[in-house]
């Protein structure tokens, strides 16, 4: 791919990742957030974070299935935007929803399992965001960095549980998100098993 092509793609990816925030801002300015704006904003930010997380997790399976490796250059961008949206989601919960009522929020984190897993997911995302730079990859070394960043699978699972447990009985979209996550992880798992079976000699190499 040419340099201009790469730059064009990067700009496009930034634009797409920022689009949910722009749409939200536009809807806020035009008084189009419905009767319960705080709930609307919270759900919007949480859902977009989850979607971007799933998008970042979809790139490796995409390479496995199609052979296209170039989308992998967007993995960090998507992951960081997922973190960006989850930080906004969390801020709305702290500032707008509970207005710094720490006692109430702490009680909720302990008592409400959907909040417990949500907080755990956020806490696990922070070190991944912090170690996302090329310098940090170098400092940690590839193997350790990769091992640390496998946490993203745990984060995906926590996000799915968070959504499943907060939704009212009967809603289907949390199951759809969980199914997509399972599918994406399944492709990786199948690929790892396949490689193990096909190349048994490589395992013993130093």
């Amino acid at each position: 791919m040419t340099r201009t092509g790469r730059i064009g793609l990067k700009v496009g990816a930034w634009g797409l990742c920022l689009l949910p925030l722009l749409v939200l801002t536009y809807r806020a300015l035009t008084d189009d957030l419905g009767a319960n704006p705080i709930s609307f904003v919270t759900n919007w930010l949480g859902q977009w974070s989850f979607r971007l997380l799933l998008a970042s997790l979809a790139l490796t399976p995409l390479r496995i299935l199609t052979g296209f490796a170039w989308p992998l250059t967007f993995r960090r961008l998507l992951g960081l935007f997922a973190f960006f949206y989850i930080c906004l989601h969390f801020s709305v919960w702290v500032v707008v929803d509970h207005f710094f009522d720490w006692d109430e929020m702490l009680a909720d984190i302990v008592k409400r399992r959907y909040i417990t897993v949500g907080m755990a997911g956020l806490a696990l995302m922070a070190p991944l965001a912090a170690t996302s730079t090329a310098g940090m990859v170098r400092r940690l070394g590839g193997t350790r960095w990769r091992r640390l960043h496998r946490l993203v699978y745990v984060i995906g699972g926590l996000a799915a549980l968070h959504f499943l447990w907060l939704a009212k009985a009967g809603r289907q979209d949390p199951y759809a998100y969980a199914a997509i996550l399972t599918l994406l992880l399944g492709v990786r798992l199948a690929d790892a098993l396949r490689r193990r079976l096909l190349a048994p000699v490589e395992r013993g190499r130093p």
Partner: protein
Amino acid sequence: MLIKRAPDFKASEITDYRLYLNRRQFLVGAAALALAPSAAAAAAAPTGQPLKAGRNAVYSLDEKEKVTKFEAATTYNNFYEFGMEKEDPAKLAHTLKPRPWTVQVDGLVQRPKRFEIDDLLKFPLEERVYSLRCVEGWSMVIPWIGFPLASLLTQVEPLGKARFVEFTTLKDPEQFPGQKPSVLSFSSIEWPYVEGLRLDEALHPLTLLTVGMYGQVLPNQNGAPVRMVLPWKYGFKSAKSIVRIRLTEEQPKTAWEKAAPQEYGFYSNVNPTVDHPRWSQASERRIGEFMRRKTLMFNGYADQVGSLYTGMDLRENY
């Protein structure tokens, strides 16, 4: 003297709700034209069929409690017969035909009776401002129009054996798209929607059989043409679009008790000290307000209804 009056209009005269919902678009178009603004304004006004009723001052809230905007109360609510999202009822409710409509009142009564909707509108109607608390943690203040359910039950003369009242919502997938079976949806609710009360709860003066809100007949999405309003219980206890009221000896099995018994009990009284298994009920967001507010015992109606539950373990009987 309360005004008794049967509405004298044809169903065709009711503004199509889709048109009503599109009034913003309509106004934008009209403003752009700017040729006949008065005609546009007349067509765009929220024109539900007016329903007159004197306000009963006994059932009002503190003056500080502002009535929720009509637009919010009619575009943000749960009515699973139309779909799972709170925006669904307003979008899809045009399929419901609230006329003609009959409510069958039977079971353990001396005089079972079928009430046409016009019969119900002949009861002495009154307007009452109640607060409504949803189990999801939001609340509204709504001026309802109706009459005590007790007045209706007196007419059918409950038998001594009757201990409970069961309410059934219309089951008709043609009118309620949410009731249509589909491959993808595994709806948690078993249709028809069934709700229930103890007879003493049903006879309580707060218990309102409701035919209107905001000075007009009930909009389809809010449970037209007749619904219950039970302000001390979570909103889902107030059955909508009722076709049958049955008096029973056994406690009715409600739709939500069947769907999620560990989350939704028969009583479902508003209670800030008994949490939903997955979320807190200690506070709520009043629609239209920024800050959360503390939820009150029995939604603020403890003085009126507290005695119904003396000696009962409200944690056990959630």
